């Protein structure tokens, strides 16, 4: 039994995008040339944010956003196909593209805009298919996909544990946490550890009970987590 969670130190994030690239490599997310800001698929996306000031008082930060792995899942409750499921053994919200019919209700219901629709069939430049991760199946067009804490890695860890006669999956780390050069992303088990003191979650007032914990020493960054608050938004 696990309850996987993530802790992200926004003050350490440099917005280099390594997590986004590592995620796309790990999960076979294609680089479609026709994708854009609205139609691209980025299971983890780093948003530049600022405090809304200009000149010397202006401060910037980078906010990595992915599926917040809610315990109270708005996306699962609206899915007519039961294509979204909260795994009680791991706490991971899974997405089953084989069941998805592409209605995109879940995308509307997700308060974090962390779900992405496959507008096109996945395609890779000639020859690049041979570098795909064999542990993760590419998704077809017409379905929704999202971060699943690198489920392929979890399965691989579980298989490895089974081969050693253990029932529980050994420790595993999602690609984003592994690749983060500054160590801003920490993956942990809520049953074995706790998020750092002062951590906060996004839109806590919605009661979605997310398992992605953020932290920052800057008050204005914490304020962003409470949006919408009637003030100007600073997501770039």
């Amino acid at each position, binding site marked *: 039994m696990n309850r996987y969670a993530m802790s992200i130190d926004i003050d350490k994030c440099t917005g280099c*995008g390594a997590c986004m690239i590592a995620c796309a*490599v790990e999960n076979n997310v294609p680089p479609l040339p026709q994708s854009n800001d609205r139609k691209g698929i980025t299971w983890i996306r780093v948003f530049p944010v600022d405090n809304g000031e200009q000149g010397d008082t202006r401060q910037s930060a980078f906010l990595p956003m992915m599926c917040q792995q809610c315990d109270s899942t708005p996306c699962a409750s609206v899915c007519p196909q039961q294509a979204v499921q909260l795994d009680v053994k791991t706490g991971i919200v899974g997405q089953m593209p084989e069941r998805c019919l592409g209605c995109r209700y879940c995308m509307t219901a997700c308060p974090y805009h962390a779900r992405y629709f496959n507008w096109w069939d996945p395609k890779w430049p000639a*020859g690049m298919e041979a570098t795909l991760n064999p542990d993760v199946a590419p998704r077809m067009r017409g379905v929704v996909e999202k971060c699943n804490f690198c489920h392929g890695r979890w399965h691989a860890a579980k298989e490895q544990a089974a081969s050693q006669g253990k029932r529980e999956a050994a420790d595993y780390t999602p690609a984003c946490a592994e690749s983060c050069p500054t160590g801003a992303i920490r993956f942990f088990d809520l049953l074995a550890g706790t998020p750092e003191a002062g951590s906060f979650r996004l839109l806590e007032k919605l009661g979605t009970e997310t398992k992605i914990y953020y932290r920052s020493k800057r008050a204005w960054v914490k304020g962003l987590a409470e949006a919408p608050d009637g003030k100007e938004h600073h997501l770039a």
Partner: protein
Amino acid sequence: MTAGVAAGTLFTPAPWRLITDSAILSENWPGIFFSSHGAPTEKFTNCALCTAGCAVKARCVNDRPISLAGVVKSPICALGLAGLHMPFHTARIAHGDAENAAAAVRAAQGKVAVLDLRPGRTASWTYRRAMAALPGGIYLAPQRILNAVNLAAVKTLVSFGAPVLDGWGTPSKVLAAREHFSLIQVEKDQSHTGLLADRWIPVQPGNEPVVAQQIARDLPADGSSLFLSSAELPSVLKMNVTLGNLGHTVIARNETPVPAAWSKQAAAVHAIQNVADRSIGALLIDEASADVAVPWDVIAPKLTNSAVVITFASTQAGYGRYAQFVLPAAVYPEVTTDIPTAIDSVVATFRLATPLMAAPSGVVDAAEFVASLAKLDTKDALQERAASIHATGRGSLLSYSDQKSRPIKDVKADQFWTALNAGACWSDSESPLKAPRWEATIATPAICEAVRPKPPLFTKLYEESGLKGIAS
């Protein structure tokens, strides 16, 4: 009327949209590729995409890398993570006429020159030896004022446009040092580094010397600051002399050893500005792994009217626009090459990038091409250089697989070569820091940003998230 309605409907989006939607809902799609399964293996190498040369752990299936990661305590950047896709750039060129290119060089009227856009490699020494052997051969390299810095001693870093936090140095070293220095970023448009700097100062182009002087006035002259400039502006870098940074944060580093015979037979390094106008009859440009470039406006006057320009590149986006011959080059991770010492290393290093996949047929090795013009045999140049390094008995060898560092004296020559090919880094012994010779009157180096193709997955950063688009 029915026929009219039916015909008219065809001019509305409805029927066409229905076709698309029914295809989506029925999942009537052609199918997707599934990578062949196999037992995953691990290989260690070094990233050759920039001179940081980060240690890389590659996960491979069926002799193909499927993901790259950094080695413990040495993370790699986003570019390095996507490096395994570099060979699949959609604009990659596949064919080139190497035979006619060689004939054109031999028939050229005037001097033969090689422009090496990543000097310091073993291939660079091949170029120098070949140019020494050819009558009138010239070896050209971009002129850099600042070649080595000691980040550990920096308390205030003043960067004029240098992407300090976005690809300038070795990620692990920059991040480790970042906790100890404050960063002032001076540039016209706020870059990624500017967003994260402690202070960002907008500047009108041309005003950099004045701003540099004003900032220097507020800093202590105790050798704890460092002035960087992306354009290598002498007026900015001179502040390092004014503030006593030479020998502290700006250092002179020993060169990675080369066989004695090479040094004796090598052509001198020239800056292209110092070459006489209309004197180069054949120019060969190695831009496959360019770190910086030289503006074409500086190169063009040096060429004779009938000059032949040959470039070794993976795409035509760089000097290919001006060249008569663009010869396809192998790219990381197909190449076997060494990586020059990073700018933020205080000691000389020697690392190899070894192939993680086979290069396609038809690629031309620039060093072999140039060596063949001078009838040099350089097939074992890397191994010869490794042997000369080993012969010095200096330094230590860090092996990535076990993270153990051993003095070079404890490693046999063949073990040294084997370890380098299996992922390892030789580092020279530490010696007291030396101040570099400083040419106060140096002219502004003619360098510009190199055209470097990005891996296909960089659409995630540039188009799908706009993460890099915020930079300017």
